[in-house]
């Protein structure tokens, strides 16, 4: 009875926290009009984006299948690599974790190289194959470090607390997520925004969104990709807006760039980084608990042989959670779009910007349901245009 009550209390707390994090400035009464993409994009544009996206989707599905199959095999046979370790249980667990990621990288390489070829073919990526492989290799080294750190936490607590390792581990992971969110801007190489007109726009927008003195900087990405992008990152004193140099290369007008800036400042204004960590916290507890339950049949996470299975469980849980994560992400992006419209009062520039995204990123304006649920972290381009239309209508109606 007591346990049931505790569970109900936890579920209630979880729901209350979710409700709080879900709060948005987008009016609940806002009605997005149904728009026909053929009115906004040429048949050639729609065909190009559809054919590109279909193959991308195929690669994604292939990649996921390879990932799950490889990890399933590794969960089944991976414990045999224990003989390659002279380290204790903790070190052996780290080795098994790293090898799991290494095998995953190797197995996924053909699909990711094909994907690179596809993106290069469409002039979206400029990165060479050799550079791609080396970058992937070094990135894997970075992943190894984080993985070892995470496994040291999990296995260390598991040795101390048994199956209840997840109770202290989850808050620690949340703390690490906060730390990473804080440190990330300092790890991203950027330089000053040169355009003085844009800089004065930044000051004006920051004032309007109550995020004064937020640095807006530029990241060099043209050696990697031609796709435009921008992001808001950091917490407290580290927060900033990063524009890719592919966004400020003259393909977009200053009015369109102001929409982007207002969107990113909107993220900061509405504390979306904090909220993202909050959502992560809400998933971290049940996630770690489920991993602990799954590892129980192999002796718990204190045993290195449970590591391959825990990797499988982690990846499967992440896959299962990704539609929910996408819903949350789309919700926050929609709010940032709304903030941008409210700040710039320029739905025309917003619509022009979103329309430019189709030829520059080959994103589908109106993807199919599966793609939307599984992959889209932003509202679709048609939804974003619809929001701009809705804003224009509401602005016209207001006195």
């Amino acid at each position, binding site marked *: 009875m007591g346990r049931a009550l505790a569970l109900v209390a936890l579920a209630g707390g979880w729901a209350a926290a979710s409700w709080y994090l879900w709060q948005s400035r987008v009016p609940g009464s806002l009605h997005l009009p149904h728009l026909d993409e053929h009115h906004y994009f040429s048949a050639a544009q729609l065909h190009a984006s559809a054919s590109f996206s279909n193959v991308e989707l195929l690669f994604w599905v292939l990649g996921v299948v390879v990932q799950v199959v490889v990890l399933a095999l590794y969960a089944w046979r991976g414990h045999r690599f224990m003989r*390659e370790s*002279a380290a*204790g249980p903790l*070190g052996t667990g780290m080795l098994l974790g790293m090898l799991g990621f290494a095998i995953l990288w190797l197995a996924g390489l053909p699909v990711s190289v094909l994907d690179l070829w596809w993106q290069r073919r469409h002039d979206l990526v400029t990165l060479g194959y050799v550079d791609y492989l080396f970058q992937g*290799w070094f990135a894997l080294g970075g992943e*190894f*470090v984080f993985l070892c750190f995470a496994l040291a936490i999990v296995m260390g607590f598991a040795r101390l607390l048994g199956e209840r390792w997840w109770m202290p581990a989850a808050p620690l992971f949340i703390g690490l997520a906060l730390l990473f969110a804080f440190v990330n801007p300092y790890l991203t190489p950027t330089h000053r925004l040169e355009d003085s007109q844009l800089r004065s726009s930044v000051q004006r927008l920051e004032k309007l969104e109550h995020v004064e003195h937020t640095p807006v900087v530029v990241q060099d990405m043209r050696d990697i990709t031609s796709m435009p992008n921008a992001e808001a990152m950091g917490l407290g004193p580290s927060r900033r807006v990063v524009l890719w140099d592919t966004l400020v290369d003259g393909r977009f007008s200053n009015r369109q760039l102001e929409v982007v800036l207002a969107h990113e400042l909107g993220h900061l204004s509405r504390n979306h980084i904090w909220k993202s960590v909050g959502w992560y916290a809400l998933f971290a507890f049940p996630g770690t608990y489920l991993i602990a339950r799954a590892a129980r049949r192999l002796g718990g996470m204190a045993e290195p042989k449970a590591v391959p299975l825990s990797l499988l469980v982690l990846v499967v849980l992440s896959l299962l959670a990704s539609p929910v994560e996408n819903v949350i992400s789309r919700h926050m992006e929609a709010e940032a779009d709304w903030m941008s419209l409210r700040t710039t009062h320029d739905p025309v520039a917003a619509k022009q910007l979103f329309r430019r995204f189709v030829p520059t990123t080959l994103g589908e304006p109106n993807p199919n349901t599966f793609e939307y649920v599984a992959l889209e972290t932003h509202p679709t381009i048609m939804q974003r245009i619809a929001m701009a239309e809705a804003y224009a209508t509401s602005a016209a109606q207001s006195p």
Partner: protein
Amino acid sequence: MEHRPDPAAAIRRIWHQCRMHEHREHPVRLVVEDDLHRNRLTVFFRLILAIPHFIWITVWSIAVFFVAIVNWIATLVTGTPPAGLHRFMCSYIRYSVHLNAYFHLIGNPYPGFVGEEGEYPVDVRLPGPEPQARWQTFFRLFLALPALFLSSALGSAGGPTYGGVSGRGSRYSFGGSGLLTAAVAVLGWFASLALGRMPKGLRDAGAYGIGYGAQGLAYLLLVTERYPNTDPTELLADVERPPQHSVYLIGDPDDLRRSRLTVFFRVLLVIPHLIWLSLWSIAAFVVGVIVWFATLITGTPPASLHAFLSRFVRYSLHVNAFLYLAANPFPGFAGEPGRYPLDLALPAPQPQNRWVTAFRVVLAVPAWIVNVGLALALTIAAIYTWFIALIRGVAPWGLRNLMAYALRYGAQLNAYVYLVTDAYPHASPLEGAAEAEPPVAEEQ
């Protein structure tokens, strides 16, 4: 009783056979009959005294270049090097060994100019002309490149080499000056002048470098088709082993199996260890300073701090052995004894000479120089092992032993610097021979 096949035993048998194959005596044998005595006067003027030989070997090398082409074509056609040309090549190799030994202070007497067998205390025995596989002969220059590259770290035999052109002019270097033998020569020069004899460790290290270079040259010049063997125990098989150092390698010498997966990702897998080792190094530095003061005052390192530094030295060896593929398994993070196939026996805290303690860092500089030479060889050997282990799933015995030598020397240097022992690192590639009981390892 039913007989059940034991796969592990079968694998062990295959490794053993591999080792036996690699253990076949190399036809190019180094002979070291040097008594370590050095004449101070000839040592002081060694470089100048060798000038006539430099001129002579330059002329000889030019001749060898053309003769080698003729020999190559003849061997391709007939399958066996012509006896006359073979003799010419043998004399050249032998002469280059004599000259290298003299120049690098591995031998004392002034060498003759014709490369006669048995006339010099550091000599080389070469095989007679034998049939050679034509495809190997055809690609000999390319096949020899890895060995010649390793020779550049250890010490090649041969004539003068052109060092390339820079904006400030050309640079010539003598062919025998591999990094290790060059270090040996410089350090040996000072030591011989001071002591009147060459330290055995340096002499053995230099002889090893020259011996490997001779094998490489013999392979390149078609004197033999056996590939050079880096195994120090075989190259210096006839050389007396040095006394047992207080820091020496223990573990499983048969640990030759390598997991291809961990080999492929070795550089990445070791990253967590390198991070941990860096953090530990900071602590070890601080503890080392404390131990230095304590040892200066009391004459003996405090037991607990000595144990800490011993663990650090052992852990460094484990990590390096894993990184450089000298060992297979992923090491632990605590430097525990007896847990790794390439392990280190370390002495218990013992009284240390205060003078040696006071000037420890300065005294370590010569050993550090030798270690730099060995580190290059270690890196090259590790790169070769990476490729071979990926293909064969085993590490070559010779390369593994070269790496073990380099790692052992590095560990002895580490132990010396961190005051685990006051025994100076011994540069001999040969593992010391235990005289009586081995030193008591700590943490027993």
